[in-house]
């Protein structure tokens, strides 16, 4: 029915209106941006405190961790900016307001997510870029054109991983009344994505690589840039991981939407 171009156009129209409407709440926007800023700094602060007591964390220096963290911040921004409405899904499903998303001749995931555009996520994105640039200067990384292209590709894939993990967690709302802890756990686990995966052993490393692939949000792809000579072959799969995982997520979402029976009224 609608082409990709139609959808982009529609998204643009809806979001400009949405941003206009949000801008009326200026205080909210400013406070939220400050909140976002603080929460961005918190993990950096933790790295800083920890590495004040020890020389390195599992072989990674402070500045290398900062680089991973910058990568992470950029990678989680698309989720924050474009898919933020997933947090509301529990309410929509419980109160029956989710019904309205069925009534338009549109892709439902698109229609649902288009209702929120999180401007403050842009603060996070900007902070991530600054941190990444700062760390790569301090680390003396050498950016050639192919490497920049590789960076963009891996960031794209990493953000798909983050989107998929969160949306999958949100989809639990279609089957259980109290899906909040699932999203909560996904949110909490996310905080560990910028940590080096080699602090984990056996089962956990396996889990964060293959089951809840948090490792692909930041740590694995960053290795391509931090130690390009010495990466495991796994890392080269990271673009595929993002796309594959998103396909799975979309499938689960569709299942959920089809099985939702709505509240009686």
């Amino acid at each position, binding site marked *: 029915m609608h082409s990709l171009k139609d959808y982009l156009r529609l998204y643009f129209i809806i979001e400009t*209106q949405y941003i206009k409407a949000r801008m009326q709440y200026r205080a909210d926007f400013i406070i939220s941006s400050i909140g976002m800023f603080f929460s961005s700094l918190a993990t950096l602060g933790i790295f800083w405190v920890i590495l004040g007591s020890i020389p390195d964390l599992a072989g990674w220096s402070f500045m290398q961790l900062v680089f991973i963290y910058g990568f992470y911040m950029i990678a989680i921004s698309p989720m924050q900016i474009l898919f933020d409405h997933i947090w509301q899904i529990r309410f929509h499903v419980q109160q029956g307001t989710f019904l309205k998303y069925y009534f338009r001749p549109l892709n439902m995931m698109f229609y649902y997510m288009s209702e929120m555009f999180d401007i403050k996520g842009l603060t996070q994105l900007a902070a991530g870029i600054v941190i990444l640039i700062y760390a790569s200067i301090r680390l003396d990384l050498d950016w050639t054109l192919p490497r920049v292209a590789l960076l963009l590709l891996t960031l794209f894939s990493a953000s798909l991983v983050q989107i998929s993990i969160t949306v999958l967690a949100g989809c639990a709302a279609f089957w259980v009344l109290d899906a909040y802890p699932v999203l909560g756990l996904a949110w909490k686990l996310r905080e560990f994505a910028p940590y080096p995966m080699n602090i984990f052993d056996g089962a956990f490393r396996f889990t964060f690589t293959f089951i809840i692939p948090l490792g692909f949000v930041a740590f694995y792809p960053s290795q391509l840039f931090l130690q390009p000579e010495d990466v495991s072959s796994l890392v080269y799969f990271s673009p595929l991981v993002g796309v594959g995982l998103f396909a799975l997520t979309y499938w689960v979402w569709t299942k959920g939407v089809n099985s939702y029976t709505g509240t*009686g009224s």
Partner: protein
Amino acid sequence: MSLIHIKDLTKHFKILNRREGLSGAFRDLFSGNYRTVEAVAGVSFDIEAGEIVGYIGPNGAGKSTTIKMMTGILKPTGGMLQVNGLMPYDNRIRQAQIMGVVFGQRTQLWWDLPVIESFKILKEIYKVDQKMFDRHMDMFNELVGLKALYSQQVRTLSLGQRMLCDISASFLHNPQVVFLDEPTIGLDISIKAKIRSVIKELNREHNTTIILTTHDLGDVEALCQRIIIIDKGKILYDGDIKRVNALFGAYRTLKLQIDDFTAATLQTLTGKLTEKFGAEHGISIAETEELWTDVTIDQARTPLSDVLNFVMSNFGVDDVRIVEISMENVVRKVYDGALK
């Protein structure tokens, strides 16, 4: 081929039986026993293009569930359902283009946006061309004169204003069929009247098929030629409104608060009414709530105004209300064989 074709349609829900009280809630933590609700239990009807059909029944009858199936939200448990030749659940996006839906008090407009922006977004979604869009907006504005509200955020509209906008929006893309689930719920008489005239006009303009559920029999009377009565998931009546009209159209209940009310008052009242209007007066009397006496009158036999005048001049009356017969009473009368 009719526009909507339904045969032996069923929908079952599985519900967890919750136990009562604190200890029950604890036990529910670990085990659940489920029971099945047959919300729609074998329903068949056909609706032709251009009809306005009133789909009515008491609470929990299965109206909304049927509509959810017709709009492609719910998958039927069994039976046959086609809208415009297709099964809605399997062709949701395609079907959405030819349908309009309004679900009670839940708006489908963009909560934070000005009304007009919602309409503009819908214009893009349904690819409505500018000419048709302008024509629709003009016509809608002529009918209800809401132009002044266009720049207001949807969230700030009153319930009635929002409902009018929602209804208008559901017709914007010139759908073949519009489903209105309780469009007048919680609204006052004047807005109700406006909504009825808008629905009627929009139906006339493009010969749009409309399926309407409501608890207000006035809506049905004003709009529909045909009604379908459903109760407990089964159809009780499907046909011309005129026959049903005789059931609820003619009846009114006069609620009276009579001075110095005693048990004997009811008897005196009954006696005096029989004396005045004869044995075949079609009036029944009951005390429903404290202090209120209900006098239900069949207007085909005795004019309400006569009864009212008579009572007022013979008894001291503190307060009077006139109410239409309720949905539940209609259904009860249908069960009692009133339409046989």
